[in-house]
């Protein structure tokens, strides 16, 4: 395997073509978009590596809070109207989500140059999670912090927000196994371009588990909870500008 272009590792200033372009990060500046379009044009296959490339990533929330700042410099430095995942601008052939992508998935990819089998197949983190789930979940309210948590029981059953029930599997439920609730770095179960459907399903699934209708209001940061890594997929700015090009 020969690396023809990788600014972080090699001094090659340009490249003519590549069999596979591995793209990390999402589109924030105009230079990001220029680099991506060039990579798509010149390579046979494009791999979106990591949750920023797949979904826009965690810093997509900067658009929700709103940033408009002074910037000075060349066009390339100008911020785009919205953060966008790679698929909004270019066709994605392969995707390895995660923040970071789970080690075993990266390994499998490098060994086989194939997508790992157990990702984005409709399975969720719950399917991999070792914690004991109650038969019929009825959440009364959510709470904050992990003090006094039972390390064997499902987080949601204990009123601790965990979005594993809607998050794509493939990580081995790493965080819940380490006694930390899933916070969604693998994106919603389903294809990478359909995260907005994933959000809708997640919201309704969560609402159905509540003891009373008002309980969902105790989520203190619902946008953070539901869209931590995927906000750009749900961003109206991005959809309006680019449509569903590249899906």
């Amino acid at each position, binding site marked *: 395997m020969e690396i023809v272009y990788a600014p972080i590792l090699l*001094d090659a200033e340009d490249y003519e073509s590549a069999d596979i372009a591995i793209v990390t990060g999402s589109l924030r500046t105009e230079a990001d978009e220029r680099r991506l379009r060039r990579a798509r044009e010149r390579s046979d296959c494009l791999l979106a590596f990591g949750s920023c490339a797949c979904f826009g990533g965690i810093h997509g929330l*900067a658009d929700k809070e709103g940033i408009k*700042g*002074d*910037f000075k410099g060349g066009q390339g*430095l100008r911020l785009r109207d919205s953060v966008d995942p790679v698929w909004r601008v270019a066709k994605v052939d392969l995707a390895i989500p995660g*923040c970071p992508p789970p080690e075993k998935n990266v390994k499998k990819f490098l060994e086989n140059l194939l997508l790992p089998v157990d990702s984005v197949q409709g399975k969720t983190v719950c399917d991999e999670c070792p914690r004991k789930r109650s038969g019929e979940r009825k959440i009364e309210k959510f709470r904050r912090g992990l003090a006094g948590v039972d390390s064997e029981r499902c987080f949601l059953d204990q009123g601790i927000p965990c979005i594993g029930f809607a998050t794509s599997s493939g990580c081995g439920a790493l965080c819940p196994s380490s006694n930390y609730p899933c*916070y969604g770095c693998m994106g919603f179960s389903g294809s990478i371009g359909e995260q907005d459907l994933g959000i809708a399903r997640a919201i309704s699934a969560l609402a159905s588990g509540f003891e009373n209708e008002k309980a969902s209001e105790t989520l203190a940061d619902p946008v953070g909870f539901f869209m931590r890594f995927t906000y750009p997929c749900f961003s109206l700015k991005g959809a309006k500008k680019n449509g569903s090009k590249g899906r």
Partner: protein
Amino acid sequence: MDLRVDEVTRVAGHIGLQVIVGKENVKARIVHSEFRGFEPLLRNRLLEEAPLYASRICGICQVSHMLASIEAIEDGLDIEVPLEARKLRDVANLAGRVQSHLLHLFLLIAPSSLKTEENLSTIGHNGKMAIAQLVIEGRGIAQKIVQEICGRSIHPVTIVPGGFSKSINMEQISNVSKLAGKLSNIIDAIGEKVEPILVDELKERGVCLRTNYMYTLEGSIIVKDSEGTEIESFRKEEYEKHIGEREVEEGYGTYPYLKAIELPFRVGPLARLNANEAENGSGALWANRRHESVTYTHARIVESKLAACRMMELVSGLKKEIGASPAELVFREGEGFGAIEAPRGTLLHHYVFNKDGIITKANIVTPTAFNSPVIERDIEENITHMLGKDVDKIKERAVKVLRDYDPCIPCATHLVNVVID
């Protein structure tokens, strides 16, 4: 002469460099060419979740960002952390430091600064892989140490306000000790191979910029001059009174400066070894202060060795399982400050939050931001001594000096005037 490099290769992040050689002087400017906005996005986020975001500021120094963030929360809410948990956090921070230093050494600067036939493109192609093999193995071990303590090597999972979310047993602790021992040996081997090459590079440069040095220790920020005399010291809570930030002309960086002494200062491995003698235990490994930017790389190797030894020391004092200790979160209006030595230098996290524990303001000052003004100064000094040489040589020296500082641009970017819609 006007030299411009739009995208400097082999640095962490996107950075441009411009050098203007005028009749009277040389002007160097680095252009931070990326921006994501972690300070704006932390507004309206849950205070206890800040570390989840902070860690993603950077994939290399994420352990330090997470620890600085956690410290700011614990500081703001008066949360105590058991001593054993604090020791293990220190071990994780030191392991993160070694991993970062080794990454820089081999992957980022080796092809130009090490004058060895080994570089990334030769791995696997011929038998000459000694340094590469050692660095890759060493990094792998450092990452395993972080994983053993924090559940995952990149973006730790188990570090929470109050301690750890999951207990760490004696088998894990013993494993960390063994790994640290192995790491120490590997670093010795790396040092032996790399030192002679660095000595040659030092001879070739012939430029030395003397500056003040800044570091943080136990919640205080200390500045010493090039001879090691303390010139300023303040508590992390007071940083805004002592540190100002200036706008840059181009790009997304800022120039932090010390309000009291407007003289150049540096942070990072060189600062820690030159200035923090009492704590770093360097002894014979760093017997004399050194100031040339090339010596940053010496400093990284020495620090890695010291880190491995310190890890073993910290772990040897742990005789029983460290229990999980997530804190009860009692919210009130306030603010919290975290100050830590990240791989590249002093890192500050400052959060202001309301009575419901929602962040209303976040300010993060990173080591690369602190070093940005002096990086430009150092490049200018170097080029002033090279006038008359051809453009390619000047360009080569400029980027070499930049890389000596191991800048991390994802961390450093910052908008001074941010308008929130």
